[in-house]
């Protein structure tokens, strides 16, 4: 009996020993569906401990051109920053598609990096209304090489207002989603402009190719709800949101707001009675359409392209924009790229083909630089919803051990998870990602 017990005990120990590495490596982000994860984010108890309040201040730079009366409220380009008391490295952060410098995800990242001792400077996406109006030279957002030059100029101007008051010990740059791929393009641009010398570059859940990601996001809406029903679907989402709504949550009706509100309802286990086959997929598509329609209309008005608004149209103070709100929501983002954006870019670049331009605006366009650059890192998820088949493997082949793929998290759903925040901080401090991470 004794021997049996001893053998069993020994077996148990061996088993434990075998399992231990897995136990340590176990990834506890719980949401199994990539769409749900993108919406609900990380449960509080699994989030990295972040400072509650950081001294973020907003500043306005003079815009680069005249602001049409319709956008009077967007006068001046906004960015925000939080500075440490003494010397520290500076982290530049770039927001994702249609998001501002003060989006919820940006604030989360800013808190994480400020808490880790960085000075933090937050920049809006080049696709955000305030940026399009004040800083876009083409006024048509979405072509990455052009957007990069605009963002870079904004970074230089912003830094010119900060350099006397911030004691900088080097620079790093990071961004999520579209801001992630922007960060890489910006760092590459900086190598010739030689202004900052970013010692680390981090892409968090970047697309490989904005066009292919946009096609996916467009399809999430169109496959689930007809455009006609899009409104009713939003109606239903809002109705559910209203049940859980508290004035303290504000009312921005942007992606972060929709996602958070929808997440709260899911958490309460409210029954779904949805028009959409997959309501989470539809919500992701819908929130992308809300921000892309803003982009399409703003770009059209700013360039006087006569796309959906007449060229010479002067919008009065009290004019109804209902038709334009409705019409620009009918435009899939890829249609805008094909019909308005690329033809405009081609005018500047006669001879360039559509394929050539789309390639230039993707990670493929900077592949050699990415391969040969040990300072560039990326984080992504196995169930990332903005990557087409093969794109994750492509990133693996290009970045190898400089890419970590978490098993779950969807698109940025795990961005505040302790593992993600630890990896973000480690990489930006000059460390490397845990071994084997790329395989997960």
């Amino acid at each position, binding site marked *: 009996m004794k021997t049996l017990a001893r053998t069993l005990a020994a077996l148990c120990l061996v088993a434990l020993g075998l399992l231990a590495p897995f136990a340590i490596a176990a990834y506890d982000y719980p949401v199994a569906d990539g769409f749900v994860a993108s919406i609900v984010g990380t449960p509080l108890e699994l989030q990295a401990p972040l400072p509650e309040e950081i001294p973020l201040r907003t500043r306005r730079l003079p815009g680069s051109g005249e602001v049409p009366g319709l956008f009077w409220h967007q006068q001046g380009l906004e960015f925000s920053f939080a500075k440490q008391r003494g010397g520290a490295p500076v982290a530049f952060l770039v927001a994702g598609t249609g998001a501002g410098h003060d989006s919820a995800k940006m604030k989360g990242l800013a808190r994480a990096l400020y808490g880790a001792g960085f000075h933090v400077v937050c920049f809006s996406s080049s696709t955000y209304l305030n940026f399009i109006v004040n800083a876009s030279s083409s006024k048509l957002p979405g072509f990455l090489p052009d957007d990069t030059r605009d963002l870079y100029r904004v970074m230089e101007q912003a830094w010119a207002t900060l350099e006397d008051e911030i004691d900088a010990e080097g620079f790093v740059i990071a961004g999520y989603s579209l801001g992630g791929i922007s960060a890489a393009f910006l760092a590459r641009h900086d190598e010739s402009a030689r202004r900052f010398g970013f010692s680390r570059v981090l892409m968090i859940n970047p697309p490989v190719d904005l066009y292919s990601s946009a096609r996916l996001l467009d399809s999430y809406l169109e496959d689930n709800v007809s455009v006609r029903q899009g409104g009713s679907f939003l109606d239903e989402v*809002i109705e559910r949101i*209203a049940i859980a709504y508290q*004035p303290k949550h504000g*009312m921005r*009706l942007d992606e972060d707001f929709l996602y958070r509100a929808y997440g709260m309802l899911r958490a309460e286990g409210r029954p779904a009675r949805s028009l959409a086959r997959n309501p989470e997929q539809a919500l992701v598509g819908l929130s992308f359409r809300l921000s892309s329609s803003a982009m399409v209309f703003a770009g059209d008005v700013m360039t006087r392209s006569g796309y959906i*608004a007449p060229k010479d149209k002067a919008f009065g103070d009290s004019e109804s924009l*209902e038709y334009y709100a*409705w019409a620009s929501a009918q435009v899939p983002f890829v249609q805008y790229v094909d*019909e308005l954006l690329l033809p405009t870019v081609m005018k500047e670049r006669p001879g360039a083909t559509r394929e050539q331009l789309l390639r230039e605006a993707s990670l493929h366009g900077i592949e050699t630089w990415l391969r040969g650059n040990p300072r560039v890192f990326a984080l992504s998820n196995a169930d990332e919803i903005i990557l087409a088949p093969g794109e994750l493997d492509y990133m693996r082949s290009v970045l190898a051990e400089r890419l970590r793929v978490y098993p779950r998290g969807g698109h940025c759903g795990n961005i505040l998870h302790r593992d993600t925040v630890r990896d973000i901080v480690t990489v930006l401090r000059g460390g490397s990602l845990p071994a084997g991470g790329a395989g997960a």
Partner: protein
Amino acid sequence: MKTLKPIALALACLSACAAVRAEESAPVFASVPDPADVRRFYPPPASVEGTILAVDDPFEAFNRRMYRFNAQFDRRVFLPLVDGYRAITPDPVETGVSNFFANLLEVRNLANNALQLHPEDALVSGARFMVNTTLGIGGLFDPATRLGLIERKEDFGQTLGRWGVGAGPYLVLPLLGPSGLRDAGGLAVDMVANGYYDPMDLEGVRDDTAARAGYNLVKGVDARSSTVFRYYRTGSPFEYVLVRYAYTRMREVEIER
């Protein structure tokens, strides 16, 4: 409060007018471009029923102007005041001030819960008022919440809604922002009633113009300070439409609840 009464009464009249406003079939969109002027013309749908544009808004031109005025007032006057107030006032004092004004509104909550035949909620509102006025030292503290008496906010607009009065056209009020004819009328009634039954009325405040102005200023700044909403922070050129829709739907759900 006396000076506000004429405005309040005017709002109440407007609200009554809403009921008799004739239903006419207007075009779906107030302004549509000429198809020849644009590269992509989307013929307007026959109806916007079931979309975020399905909000009755015959005063859109006025409302948009008012929205813009409010945003400018916010930026130039209101928010600087709020920032100044927050900077010079210690947090516990701010909370105390907020509690004080919230406590005064318990009388409104009590009345409207009673009018909606929600006796339990009315009792909670009454109990909250008594507890916070006594134990909470005139309403500066909120011990009632800690005792499990959660605020049951109800206003006269909701009471009207409960008894079948429709929302009426959307209306953007000066300084107060998104509302509707019914809710504006409700607000007017609440304000007039509050003027008569102001439970904490201090004789001196009522007679002294300067003191009354100061009291109303603090009240307004406190109200703005505890409202998270900021104009033009959606990053959308269609913010007016989004806010109009969100306000209207949320209000409907509050009333159904």
